[in-house]
């Protein structure tokens, strides 16, 4: 036991102290933030100031409305619905935020009305085209006289391929036309808006409890993603740790001092603790950051029962451990980390398969497929969680799946340690499967 702890301590201390760990821990969140925020900013970035549009109004009464819609940034219909879908908590705040974001995304608009002044429409168009050529204008809108009847308008722009602007323009004209049609029919616009408000569907489980399925489902995906990330990040570390000892022949001294099983277990737990330390730091940083940034604007955190948190934690550890062991197992058979990464990939893909399975399971959480996949240790960390948040299965099923996971992890470590002991005595080449099988029986 003390030897086991010595191994855990070494793996942990040596890794946590490395510059790489410190840099990765500090830069990790920054990089992640960068990946989520920067692309958004880059798309939203509007180079060269506001978009300058001209309106040629042949109806004689629409230009004011269209201009208002364009400048006020009333969004196209789909955006509007998304806004309404938000929970009522902090509604105005939320809506405002989204509008702001949308404005940033669409950029701002400068709109001018171009009166016909007795010229023919073709003359005006020709004139506007010249102005576009001269870069005085980015585009223009022609509202034909029968706009309200046909619902057809014309938009010409230098950059006609820009779908964001043309969508935006379409939305603005639609809104203007709708408003005008309602006004013509003498219907109050405001009351129509109120009447069109979508209903709020509250979903309840059959037990009468309000179902938190949706929020839970996102959490499960979060956990799945976390397992995937940590396996990718730290699987390599486990792989490297095993290969280093094989390459440098330290394994021989280790095996003359400690049994293979506690050695392998110690390595895995040591590296896992490093991973958990990193995640804990990130978690705390994230929570503090959110608390500081979002202070005042209450974000509707979904209410989650503490038992669910417990399950999330336990299954995360299970999933991580099972897949990390795969990397250790692979490490005993190969000579370089690159080789090992390739060999471990098919197994890690099972994790993704588990994620896909959960789309089916969420619709029928008690099907045989759901049951069996939540008993299969490589899927269970995700599929069982999905079942728990949708239609919690009887406790014995959860316990059974956990037991299977645990047995798998321990079994894999046992197998790994056996292969390690024999494999490290052989040098220089990648082992074949029959060879490995021989080692297992030999050790």
């Amino acid at each position, binding site marked *: 036991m*003390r030897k086991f702890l010595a191994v855990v301590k070494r793996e942990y201390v040596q890794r946590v102290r*490395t510059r790489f760990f410190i840099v990765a821990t500090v830069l990790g969140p920054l990089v992640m933030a960068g990946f989520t925020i920067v692309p958004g900013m880059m798309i939203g970035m509007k180079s060269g100031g506001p978009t300058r549009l001209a309106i040629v109004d042949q109806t004689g009464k629409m230009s004011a409305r269209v201009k208002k819609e364009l400048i006020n940034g009333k969004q196209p219909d789909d955006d509007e619905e998304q806004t309404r879908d938000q929970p009522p908590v902090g509604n105005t705040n939320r809506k405002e935020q989204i509008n702001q974001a949308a404005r940033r995304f669409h950029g701002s608009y400068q709109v001018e009305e171009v009166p016909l002044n007795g010229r023919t429409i073709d003359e005006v168009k020709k004139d506007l085209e010249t102005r576009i050529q001269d870069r005085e204008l980015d585009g223009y809108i022609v509202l034909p006289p029968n706009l309200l009847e046909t619902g057809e308008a014309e938009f010409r722009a230098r950059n006609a391929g820009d779908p964001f602007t043309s969508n935006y323009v379409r939305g603005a004209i639609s809104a203007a036309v709708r408003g005008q049609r309602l006004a013509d029919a003498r219907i109050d616009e405001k009351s129509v808006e109120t009447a069109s408000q979508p209903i709020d569907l509250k979903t309840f489980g059959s037990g009468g409890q309000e179902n938190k399925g949706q929020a839970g489902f996102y959490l499960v995906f979060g956990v799945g993603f976390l397992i995937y990330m940590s396996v990718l990040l730290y699987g390599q570390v486990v792989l490297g740790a095993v290969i280093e000892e094989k390459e440098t022949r330290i394994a021989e*001294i280790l095996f*003359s*001092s400690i049994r293979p099983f506690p050695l392998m277990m110690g390595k895995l737990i040591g590296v896992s603790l490093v991973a958990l330390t990193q995640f804990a730091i990130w978690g705390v940083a994230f929570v503090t950051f959110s608390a500081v940034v979002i202070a005042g604007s209450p974000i509707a955190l979904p209410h989650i029962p503490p038992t669910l948190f417990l399950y999330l934690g336990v299954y995360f550890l299970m999933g991580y451990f099972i897949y990390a062991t795969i990397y250790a197992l692979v490490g005993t058979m190969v000579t370089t980390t690159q080789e090992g990464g390739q060999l471990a990939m098919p197994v890690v893909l099972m994790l993704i398969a588990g994620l896909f399975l959960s789309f089916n399971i969420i619709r029928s959480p008690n099907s045989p497929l759901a049951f069996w996949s939540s008993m299969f240790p490589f899927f269970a960390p995700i599929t069982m969680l999905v079942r728990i948040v949708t239609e919690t299965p009887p406790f014995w099923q959860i316990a059974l799946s956990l037991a299977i996971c645990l047995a798998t992890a321990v079994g894999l470590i046992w197998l790994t340690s056996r292969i390690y*002991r*024999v494999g490290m005595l052989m040098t220089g080449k990648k082992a074949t499967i029959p060879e490995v099988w021989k080692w297992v029986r030999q050790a």
Partner: protein
Amino acid sequence: MTDNTKPTLVLEHVTKRFGDFTAVDDLSLQVRPGRIFGVIGPNGAGKTTTIRMIVNITIPDSGRIELFGQPMKVSLQDRIGYLPEERGLYRKMKVGEQLRFFAELKDVRGKEADARIDRWLEKLQLSDWKNKRAKELSKGMQQKVQFITAVIHDPDLLILDEPFSGLDPVNVELMKQTILDNKGEGKTIILSTHQMEIAEKLCDDVCMINRAHKVLDGPLREIRRSFARNAVALQIVGGDGLLNDPALVANTRQHGEELEVLLVPGANPQILLKRLVDAGVTVNKFELVEPSLHDIFIEKAREAA
């Protein structure tokens, strides 16, 4: 200390196969306490496999290994110090921490471990390197660090596989002295090496393994005596004809300045000396040659081939 009457280590009919390849075949040997036991043999003879079985890294397919009077088991590993042929240190770990880790793996910890580490580093002139990473050390230094990992827990049995490879002459002497010190403390030492001159000087007993089999075993002195070939190393001026008596001389070989004269079995070397002196030949060197371990090794290896 160790009981002087019982052998420290006993191997009985030990066999180890890897697939179709037999690495060690029906090997039996005994290592007596307080002595240096040399294991010699050509590359691939099965020395390392034998040693790995002794330290319980691999387990024999058949046969029995008994250590300190008990069947081999995990708990006995802590009483063995092992320096493997292929050395390994964690490259990025500092020497002191590294030694600390290996000490803990042998159940030596706390202040005791620190004290021992400092003592050994000083003894092997490595104190200045305690806080350096292993990869910054020269090969010879790494070798010495590795040696410390083998002795840090004060083992009763020390197994050294090629302890001198990669060391310069000064460090070879230092290592030899350290090994002899250990012997002086009553420890049993198993020494596997190719370097016959060193084995010759250090070992009390020798076992030679070739192609998985034991070909020789016993106290070094007895082995050499049994291989005595009645040979004389000569350095003379003149008197060449005297060596042509077939009743006395079986064969002669020139080695540079020296002449190796192999006498007829049973012939008395003193007769040859007398004849030389009587004939007025200048005798610069007249030495009865015992076969070196090197010669025995080569002879045995050839025999088997």
